[in-house]
């Protein structure tokens, strides 16, 4: 099957939209997605325009770069300013503003910050620069955490002594728990696609059980998303919330057992601060004590200047679905992709970036 073609066909799209209209009837339904790739896929495909007015799609804290607090960025910058340190990072983190600067601005002063596409490259940089300390900025959800864990295991096996990871990883179901108890009446979640490929769809069972919220694990093609909304509307209309998987070609109930094992070998759960939401218990990943020789926070003690939030920035509220980007007074004028004030505008998966790119001119 040609997945790209088949999941982007007009005929099936229109018939799924008809089905959604029928199932939703007149009932107001609010569905939240918590995955940056879904944010972009929904905006890019123009799906909102096709849905009936009573279906409201909102974005939650699905962009790992956006939910990373300023303190993590400030810490990375302080490390970058040290002698003999090479910072390796995914490209997305480069332009995110911290309290005072960004990695991109620092790179312009001193060329010790390198963009990598995976930790394989970061390890290679460590091997090739034995006299430098190579720090990988580990930002991401469970989709990337296993590969970061694997890099630590490789470093251990090869006795690489100059490779460190700053673990700023976060894990997904906990914020959904917090948001389900929050102010916004949610009828359902469009559950993340690739996080679920790792953790398994069973991870969301508590949401319908505890809160009566419908859950569908969705793929990323337009038809995946439309079909998932159809399945959610069906659950809500029949007051029968459960966890269903639309993205069956990739996601199973148990997830990727091997990836989870690797992740759990190196990391353990810890409390973690989410931009806008605050500290959520057991929502982050910390490097276990037996791997502390690879832990950047163990290796480097840093005196951070006071953490500052950008004035007027509503990223925190956007991340909780409390406001949409166009509600923010800075949106488009002061804050835009060329000169972002907050991470939601600069990240390739940020809600504000998605709105700016695809929905700004929507009438």
């Amino acid at each position: 099957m040609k997945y790209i073609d088949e999941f982007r066909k007009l005929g099936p799209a229109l018939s799924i939209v008809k089905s959604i209209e029928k199932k939703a009837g007149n009932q107001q339904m609010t569905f939240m997605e918590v995955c940056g790739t879904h944010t972009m896929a929904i905006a890019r495909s123009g799906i909102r325009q096709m849905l009936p007015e009573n279906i409201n799609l909102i974005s939650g804290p699905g962009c790992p770069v956006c939910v990373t607090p300023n303190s993590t960025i400030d810490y990375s910058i302080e490390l970058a300013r040290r002698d003999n340190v090479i910072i390796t990072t995914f490209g997305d983190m480069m332009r995110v503003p911290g309290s005072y600067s960004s990695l991109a601005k620092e790179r312009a002063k001193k060329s010790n910050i390198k963009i990598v596409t995976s930790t394989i490259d970061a390890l290679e940089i460590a091997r090739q620069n034995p006299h430098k300390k190579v720090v990988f900025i580990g930002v991401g959800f469970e989709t990337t955490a296993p590969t970061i864990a694997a890099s630590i295991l490789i470093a251990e096996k090869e006795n690489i002594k100059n490779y460190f990871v700053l673990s700023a990883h976060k894990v997904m179901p906990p914020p959904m728990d917090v948001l389900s108890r929050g102010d916004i009446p949610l009828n359902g979640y469009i559950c993340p696609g690739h996080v679920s490929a790792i953790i398994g769809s069973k991870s969301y069972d508590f949401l319908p059980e505890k809160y009566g919220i419908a859950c569908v694990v969705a793929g990323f093609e337009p038809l995946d998303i439309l079909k998932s909304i159809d399945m959610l509307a069906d659950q809500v209309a029949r007051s029968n919330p459960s966890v269903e998987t639309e993205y069956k070609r990739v996601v199973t109930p148990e997830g990727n057992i091997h990836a989870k094992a690797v992740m759990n070998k190196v990391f353990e759960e810890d409390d973690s601060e989410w931009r806008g939401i605050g500290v959520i218990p057991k929502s982050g990943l910390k490097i276990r004590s037996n791997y502390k020789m690879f832990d950047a926070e163990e290796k480097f003690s840093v005196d951070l200047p006071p953490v500052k939030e950008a004035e007027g920035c509503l990223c925190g509220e956007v991340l909780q679905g409390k406001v949409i980007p166009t509600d923010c007074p800075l949106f488009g004028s002061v804050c835009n992709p060329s000169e972002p004030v907050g991470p939601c505008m600069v990240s390739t998966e940020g809600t504000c970036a998605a709105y700016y790119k695809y929905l700004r001119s929507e009438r």
Partner: protein
Amino acid sequence: MILKKDSVVTLAHGGGGTLTQQLIEEIFVPAFKNSYLTPLNDSALLGLNSSRIAYTTDSFTVDPVFFPGGDIGYLSVCGTVNDLAVSGAEPRFLSVGMIIEEGLKFSELEKIVKSIKKAADEAGVVIVTGDTKVVEKGKGDKIFINTSGIGEFTKDLTLIPSNIKPGDKIIVNGEIGYHGMAVITARESFGFSNVINSDVAPLNRIIKKVVESGARIKVMRDATRGGVATVLNEIAGSAGFTIEIEEERIPVAEIVRGACELLGFDPLYVANEGIVVLFVDSADAEDVIRIMRKEKYGEKSRVIGTVTDRSEGIVVEHTSIGSTRVLDLLTGEMLPRIC
């Protein structure tokens, strides 16, 4: 042959003395032998038939220097030839300036110079003058090339965005996205089993055929960095009309689409080096397609969209699932050093 093939360019070769002479005589002159260049004067003395000329320059920093489907030499000629051709002029004379990092192998330099010659011959242009400098190791990146070019108008054409009118059709000459994906997949170790080749090509001959047909061409652009979407935005913004394109009509090869999907790129924003975007009067569109499809580099020509009468200078795409989305300008570097 005094220069050994496995030896390298050194600072001394840029010094202006005997080693520089050697470099010129053993590598450049054999490749570029012609009546304008061979005298090796400080300036080339040229004559043109038309009093209306086009002039352009471009610099090339592509990494890697040798990529699937081409190299920096071939690219440096095609880039400038195409810039002249899309303005409606016939490219005639090029200059080639090189900044070489000490340590570049002579065998590599020779390969690049041969590619320049090959591209120039294919385009029917002459390399009439050049310059070479050598910088210390670490102060360049193998080689940077600048070319500038002169073309002349054989027809009275002024191809600018303000020519376009509602109803005009938008045509591309082939499948998009090859060059950027060829370079990025060659550069990173993605381990793709299929090689994507750059589409780098001189387009002056196919463009000349369209110009000579008398078709009413409004404006043309070559869609390099930033891709087709960027060109369309520039034109829509200048002209002040909304442009509409159909996702289904945009030609993209499977291999490019696959690589784009895997890496999260949109083919409409990926660089090309062999794609021209033409705005033509709707009555002439069919004829133009017919003419282009008979030519090399035009076999897959397609109409991809229309100029509307709405006065907002944006680009809108009708997607394959029946929705519409705005194609905005890119911010920031999608892919650095691809041309």
